């Protein structure tokens, strides 16, 4: 098995996808659909958004043609791997009631087909680890997530072009991946088309690389990959260490800034839906018309909804400011208490997809520095 980096051109990438499909994997990767980059079925590298780059700012997202024909020049879109491991809706159980009132319970046993995701970004790899800790590392395990996780094959790609909302470096991650992949690619753009430097992270990844046409990566190629990584990190120069600053948010629960943000926030929940680590779910029971069967469904929920904190007299978090506080403090601060690490990876989705452009980088920095 290959231990040292290999290199290949797009044709070998196609062979890799074909082999995965042959092995029974559903293969998905980033594609340009409805003017956003989302994960969708991928046949060959030609399906990737070639020559497309993105512009992301608080509340803004657009795609543009770039001056070079790279495959992976657009950063993360609204979807993350979460959509495929922790789906927005999944069945928990079915209960049927017989004529004599007896209940029989059938737990849903997920048996998903193997899934290969191409082009997973370093931030999303870290997000996966965080969801692992929440959904399979505690006293109980979410069976749907665990089953999906077991059948996952990951071809990750380092970022050459962070978007305007990326801040992984301020959270101590990225823009290159260190673990959590089967294969890791760095794209080296060139006039004759891109080349890829590939490293195996698992035996399965190594076997796959052995099965396609590759060469040993040259010192020049490795040097170029390192330069690209350094340039990408430079693009995200962070003034504030948000990983550290975030831990202090829970000391500022009384700040008047929460109410002030509450005036801008619409409580639309976009940030929690697009967040690759937000895991919260609601459990909903529905019955058949004749009331003989009842199904429990697990659906994504968000701490921005009023029902999320409902108790007898009404929601505990009635004001939008208090819901924003729950989101930000949980993500950056109390997640450490609950799971031993930050809940944020710095992917920037919550900034891009916030319709009013609230920027967590700015809010974390100013609230953690405030005087309360």
């Amino acid at each position, binding site marked *: 098995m290959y231990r040292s980096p290999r290199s290949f051109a797009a044709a070998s990438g196609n062979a890799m996808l074909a082999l995965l499909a042959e092995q029974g994997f559903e293969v998905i990767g980033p594609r340009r659909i409805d003017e956003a980059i989302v994960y969708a079925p991928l046949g060959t590298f030609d399906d990737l958004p070639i020559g497309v780059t993105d512009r992301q700012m608080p509340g803004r997202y657009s795609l543009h043609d770039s001056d070079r024909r790279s495959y992976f020049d657009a950063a993360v879109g609204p979807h993350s791997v979460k959509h495929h491991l922790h789906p927005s809706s999944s069945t928990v159980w079915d209960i049927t009631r017989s004529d004599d009132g007896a209940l029989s319970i059938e737990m849903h046993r997920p048996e998903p087909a193997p899934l290969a995701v191409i082009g997973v970004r370093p931030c999303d790899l870290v997000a996966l680890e965080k969801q692992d800790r929440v959904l399979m590392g505690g006293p109980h395990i979410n069976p749907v997530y665990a089953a999906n996780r077991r059948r996952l094959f990951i071809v990750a790609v380092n970022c050459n072009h962070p978007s305007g909302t990326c801040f992984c470096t301020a959270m101590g991650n990225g823009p290159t991946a260190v673990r959590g992949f089967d294969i890791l690619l760095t794209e080296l753009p060139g006039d004759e088309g891109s080349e890829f430097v590939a490293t195996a992270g698992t035996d399965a990844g190594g076997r796959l690389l052995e099965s396609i046409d590759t060469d040993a990566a040259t010192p020049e190629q490795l040097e170029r990959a390192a330069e690209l990584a350094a340039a990408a990190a430079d693009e995200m120069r962070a003034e504030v260490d948000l990983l550290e600053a975030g831990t202090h948010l829970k000391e500022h629960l009384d700040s008047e800034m929460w109410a002030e943000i509450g005036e801008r926030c619409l409580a639309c929940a976009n940030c929690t839906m697009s967040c690759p680590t937000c895991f919260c779910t609601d459990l909903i029971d529905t019955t058949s018309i004749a009331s003989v069967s009842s199904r429990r469904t697990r659906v994504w929920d968000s701490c921005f909804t009023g029902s999320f904190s409902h108790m007898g007299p009404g929601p505990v978090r009635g004001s939008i400011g*208090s819901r924003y506080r*729950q989101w930000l403090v949980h993500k950056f601060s109390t997640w450490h208490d609950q799971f031993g690490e930050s809940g944020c990876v710095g992917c920037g989705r919550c900034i891009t997809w916030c319709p009013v452009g609230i920027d967590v980088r700015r809010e974390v920095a100013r609230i953690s520095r405030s005087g309360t």
Partner: protein
Amino acid sequence: MNAAPIAQPGRDTSGTTLDSLLVPRPYHVIAKRLETHDVTTLHVVPCDGGRPPSFKPAQVGMVGAFGVGEAALSISSEVHQLSQHSYTIRRAGPITNALIDTPIGGTVTVRGPFGRPWPIDDLDGGSLVIFGGGLGLAPLRAVIHEALRRRSDFTDLRVLIGARTPRDLIFRDEYAAWDERGAHVAVIVDNRDDDWAGPIGMIPDLLDDQTRAEVDWVTAHVMICGPDPMMASVSKRLTGLGVETSRIWWTMERNMQCGNALCGHCQFGPIIVCRDGPVVNLADIEPYVGIEEL
């Protein structure tokens, strides 16, 4: 590449999908007891003929009404009486109404038990003081019985009970027996009605001169269950008497959906109530007490 299972990045979870605490178990309602105008105790046994699982005081079951949903409910029976479980339920909405209205012989489902119990196994003697406000006595009933069973472990046992009106007192016919078995039981109500001859006021008023003088507060362990403001005001009085917050325990209540630390609903600041509670040590949550809308 061969056909061996390909990716194994996370923890190996094979076989874990059968986690029995995630699977609801049908129970028959074998008896019902009206406690107050809106509180009823259901006595239940597993439909499969087996025994209900053992549990610790203050642990909860996720009790389900077919097609309506599940509510977190404290097991109010005694830990050593395992022929059945009891749940003492207040009508609060669709689920609790459906559960209370389940006929005798009808079926409910239960998952659990879940949660951190009152720390009765870890106490180093001294006095034990228990405060229950309103329905808050339900999660305390098992620990009161346990303390009575081990009465000689404690120098003093106090049970201080409060409710809005005498009509809202639950387990009222048991107080005399608790007192006889060695607990000092005191009861107070906010508003009287005709047959009430006892004191009127709020629970902290039960800490009158005599009680304050009699209890050895330095060795005291205190367990409190009731609405958040009641637990806060009682705790404030106690710390004034010299009780360290690390010797005071509360039960927290937040919206609960899963009971399994998976749905995120029951967070209270750093705490996931179904995993780290419902019983929490006051020293651990002190910075968060009294913060609005947390």
